[in-house]
């Protein structure tokens, strides 16, 4: 089947914050309305709406998609929620892509939203319910624990010093100082990260992203509609590749050092984009930068390796040496990421896709990477640490 060319033409972001006064619907509306206004279109021009939101237990509304429909501009449209946990924010624009590439729709409004402050006593109490009822939940697992297990194994296997992992928190929280949506932009030292409160060894407070409220929307269009609306190619980022992959739910049995599912998702996206050489050197040359998922600092590194952008066990030193700084050889998470901007689950990954768009269209303001950028990748990860979702965008005038 011949696939149509699809572009993101605008984004809309709310501020990310600990506890927004707005309802989830109102957060969705701010983002969706901003994206429509930025694109210079109205809801009447929209053919379909897509809603991305993670567990219902955060906002506290079961079947959150039906609740969010009006705020996301989806009333009386073919509106559908895709849901792959933390991977949702990248999967939602992938849904937008196939709705348009297939020829079904021309103009799609994609909204990712999360209001995590509603849930009590904590988001981790909600996360407890994603584990197996019989053999895991009686022990009271939460995500901090299971990431502590994964992080320790990753460090041991490759002999990674904690300083190298801490460098990711310093970089991302520092980058977030330049992001208008950010809630935790901070100028930190590696010592600050190492000396922060211990949550579950080896995970400390500053290794982790904050729970948050927020929403991010996109307007996506077919090439034909972009021409019809007279939208400048300077404002467009084309979807060049997409990929997603789900591993077994038995998280205990997976390779704790290497996210195979991210590799599979990434290779699907690279192949679709026509990039045959999947070696780190070739990929870092082909891509200008990346926005991998960073709910924990070591996950950015883990994911860079799964994405084939660095050899196994080699990403931490690159981060420590500044290779992945915004002005480094291969910028990673110039936005400030989940660690710095905040982690309203689905919206956080939406923010990463938005960052790729903003960098490629030269609209990243103080965050703009100080070199020509032609192509960027966003990746998210979720469900029970088992899904990888990848999207690759290129600039509107890039062949």
């Amino acid at each position, binding site marked *: 089947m011949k696939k149509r060319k699809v572009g993101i033409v605008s984004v809309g972001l709310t501020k990310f914050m600990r*506890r*927004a*006064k*707005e*309802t989830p*619907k*109102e957060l969705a*509306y701010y983002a*969706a*309305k901003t994206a*429509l206004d930025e694109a210079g279109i*109205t*809801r*009447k021009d929209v053919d379909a709406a897509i809603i991305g939101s993670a567990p219902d*237990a955060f906002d*506290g509304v079961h079947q959150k998609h039906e609740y969010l429909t*009006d*705020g996301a*501009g989806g*009333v009386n449209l073919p509106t559908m929620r895709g849901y792959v946990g933390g991977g949702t924010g990248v999967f939602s624009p992938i849904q937008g892509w196939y709705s348009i590439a297939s020829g079904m729709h021309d103009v799609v409004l994609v909204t990712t939203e999360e*209001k995590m*402050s*509603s*849930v*009590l*006593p904590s988001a981790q*109490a*909600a996360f*407890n*319910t994603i584990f197996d*009822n*019989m053999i895991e*939940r*009686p022990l009271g697992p939460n995500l901090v624990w299971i990431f502590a297990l994964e992080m320790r194994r990753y460090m041991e296997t490759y002999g990674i010093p904690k300083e190298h992992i801490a460098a990711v928190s310093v970089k991302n929280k520092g980058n977030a100082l330049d992001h208008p949506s950010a809630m935790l932009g901070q100028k930190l030292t590696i010592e600050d990260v190492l000396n922060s409160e211990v949550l579950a060894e080896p995970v400390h407070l500053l290794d982790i992203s904050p729970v948050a409220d927020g929403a991010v929307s996109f307007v996506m269009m077919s090439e034909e509609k972009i021409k019809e609306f007279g939208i400048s190619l300077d404002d467009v980022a084309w979807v060049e590749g997409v990929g997603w992959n789900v591993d077994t739910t038995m998280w205990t049995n997976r390779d704790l050092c290497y996210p195979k599912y991210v590799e599979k998702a990434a290779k699907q996206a690279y192949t679709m984009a026509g990039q045959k050489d999947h070696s780190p050197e070739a990929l870092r040359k082909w891509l200008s930068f990346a926005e991998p998922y960073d709910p924990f600092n070591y996950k950015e590194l883990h994911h860079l390796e799964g994405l084939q952008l660095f050899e196994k066990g080699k990403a931490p030193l690159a981060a420590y040496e500044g290779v992945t700084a915004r002005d480094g050889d291969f910028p990673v998470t110039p936005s400030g990421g989940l660690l710095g901007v905040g982690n309203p689950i689905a919206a956080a990954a939406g923010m990463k896709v938005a960052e790729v768009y903003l960098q490629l269209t030269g609209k990243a303001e103080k965050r703009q990477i100080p070199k020509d950028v032609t192509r960027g990748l966003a990746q998210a990860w979720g469900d029970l640490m088992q899904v990888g979702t990848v999207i690759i965008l290129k600039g509107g005038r890039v062949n």
Partner: protein
Amino acid sequence: MLPKRRTMTDAPTHEVRGGFPVHFHYTVGIVGEIFFNGLKERKLLAVTCKECSKTYFPPRMYCEDCFAELTNEEFKTLEQEGTVESFTKTYKDHRGNSLSEPYYLALIKIKGSDTVFFHKLINVDEPNIGMIVKPVWSETTKASLFDIIGFEPA
């Protein structure tokens, strides 16, 4: 068609008890604050979309049709009168327990509004669709949905 599974029976089984141990504190929202504060003053506040003239009660931040933002519009006080659009008499609660006193729930269109409000119908024996009703206010109001005890025949 059916697999030959002898394990598929209704027999008693070993169980592990669990639950979803979460509860919530919901923000009422930007426009919700206006609506609930209106109830505290025994007022029914609504907002009209300038673009399509649709009036929302309870009010909203945005028009779901034309997507205009309504936050900056003037919130108007509706008359305390509504029409019953539909009703039901409920005999059981959501746990399946029988109610000692069955009661009426209704969909009520407040005069001047284009949307329909869900609340209790009280002090009525035989309601009918089209019946004109008015809110019965609680003695002390505290910006809650139950500042209105229910609606009764006007």
